[in-house]
């Protein structure tokens, strides 16, 4: 009898496990769908709602306080981002133009911007291919600013990309806190709101920069010069980290260079890596060599840039540089795999 009981007990374990799996799997799938819906709601809120908030931006142990005002009126977006910590810098996006007021530099920069997004950014839609490389999960709910929030993590499935964690207001889907994390979950940078209002109306005065522009130099910029396309060599990454594919290719002359560089953009749907290839005759954009000075040696190596990395190497005499908000190994991988295809067939990715 005792033996029978033991056997039954042995059988019960896998049964219970199977049962548990059967019940949790659909829930997990449903949870992911639910999270995607929430991310879409967040994108919509960021781009279509009125809001006025103050947030902290933390990176590398440093904190900055900023105010953002975002107004959508009759389909037109006006947005203002202002530093509250002393530099006095402000950005205003209105009427298809982005204006950067840099009082400490006595300069105002104006550029045409047709983007419909938000200064706070948004996440691209999660299609099936993105899901192959990021796992979306809902984490236990919590409170921020006294409001109930839903917490969603977009976790990279490998070490070739970064992830996000988002604390979304249950009521408005606005991200009250966001973090950029590496694949081990270490936080690279984060923002969180100390105050966020979503008023029906936002007066013009809240979108008017407080910077006094008397005596400041204005620099107005026309459309992006990216269309300058030259008949450049055929360059491609022969191999890519999983999920990355070529999304844009073109040519542009970079500051400090005398000839256009080939510019390839690779993306996995969320993360983006640019690859620049310069022909041997061109002075590399990073070198910025003067005619009367010794030419600088070609760029070789890795550098931390913003929340990502840049890696440069030389391939058959060509300067190859990969840059992106991705881990170091991703830019290294891509830069090292760039090949020059002369007359041969290009790889499809």
């Amino acid at each position, binding site marked *: 009898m005792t033996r029978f009981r033991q056997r039954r007990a042995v059988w019960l374990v896998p049964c219970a496990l199977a049962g548990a799996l059967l019940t949790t799997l659909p829930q997990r799938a449903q949870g992911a769908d639910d999270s995607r819906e929430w991310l879409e709601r967040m994108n919509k809120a960021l781009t279509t709602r009125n809001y006025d908030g103050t947030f902290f931006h933390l990176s590398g142990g440093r904190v900055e306080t900023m105010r953002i005002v975002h107004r959508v009126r009759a389909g037109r977006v006006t947005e203002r981002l202002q530093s509250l910590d002393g530099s006095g810098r402000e950005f205003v996006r209105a009427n298809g133009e982005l204006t950067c007021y840099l009082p400490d530099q006595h300069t105002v920069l104006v550029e045409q911007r047709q983007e419909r997004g938000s200064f706070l950014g948004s996440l691209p839609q999660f299609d099936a291919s993105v899901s192959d490389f990021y796992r979306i999960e809902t984490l236990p709910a919590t409170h921020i600013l006294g409001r109930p929030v839903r917490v969603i993590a977009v976790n990279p499935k490998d070490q070739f990309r970064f992830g996000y964690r988002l604390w979304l207001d249950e009521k408005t889907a606005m991200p009250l806190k966001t973090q950029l994390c590496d694949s081990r979950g270490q936080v690279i940078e984060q923002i969180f709101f100390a105050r966020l209002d979503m008023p029906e109306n936002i007066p013009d005065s809240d979108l008017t920069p407080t910077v006094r522009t008397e005596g400041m130099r204005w620099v*107005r910029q026309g459309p992006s010069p990216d269309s300058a396309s030259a008949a450049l060599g055929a360059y491609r990454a022969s191999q890519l980290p999983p999920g990355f594919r070529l999304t844009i290719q073109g040519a542009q002359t970079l500051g400090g260079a005398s000839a256009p560089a080939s510019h390839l953009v690779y993306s996995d749907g969320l993360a983006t890596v640019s690859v620049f290839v310069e022909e041997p005759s061109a002075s590399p954009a990073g070198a910025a060599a003067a005619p009367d000075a010794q030419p600088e040696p070609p760029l*070789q190596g890795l550098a931390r840039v*913003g929340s990502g990395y840049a890696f440069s190497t030389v391939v058959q005499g060509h300067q190859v540089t990969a840059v992106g908000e991705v881990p170091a190994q991703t830019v290294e991988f891509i830069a090292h795999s760039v090949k020059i295809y002369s007359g041969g067939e290009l790889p499809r990715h």
Partner: protein
Amino acid sequence: MSEQIREQVSAFLDGELPSSETELLLKRLTRDGELRESFGRYAMIGEAMRGAGSHILARGFTSRVNLAIDGEPAQVPGQAHPARASRWWRPLAGVTVAAGVATVAIVALQQRAISPGARVAPALTAQNVRAQNVRAQNVTAQNARIPQSVVAAQNASVQGGGGAREALSYTVPVRSADAPAALSPARFTNYVFAHSKYSLGLGQRGVLADLLIEDDETQPAPIQGLAQPSLTPQPPLTPEARVAP
């Protein structure tokens, strides 16, 4: 950080500070740079202590944070060399939208300089900055007579000696380099700027934030050959005419 403010910060990071008090804390932080620094360290240590696996703010971590912050603030778990990491961080922090603005201006100017009919303008380097700054003074004087004038970058053309066309550009003065001994991030600037237009998603927000950040003493060597407003130390950004060789 006083005990009261420390408690406020902890409660805020825990999402438990009432909004009225949050306003007060915000005001304090806006005014007080030192407090902001402590706050940043505090938040960072908090994140590190919560660890890689735990995503949610763990209640009661405050006491551990206090311990850590009172003990060795520089020794942030999971960050071996905070000071150095920060130095790496700063130079090219501005990556997307706003950086794009500065860059596009420069890219266009460079393109203009190499367009047919114009000779190739020399690339801006540490070596020729001094000479150019001298020339820049003249241009600044000209600009001073027309304050608030809008400079259409692509059309701007200052007549220089011998009728040579000059391209308007910007100089970031060179400071003594205190950047890490490894490859200078400054040399990647042009690439980062060009990339910025295509970067997706929430990465933009950090970039904008970085451009809005006040320059400070901890800044590393500035970028050569490009305007990078968020990083430019004194003296301020200077317009100048560059004469083609």
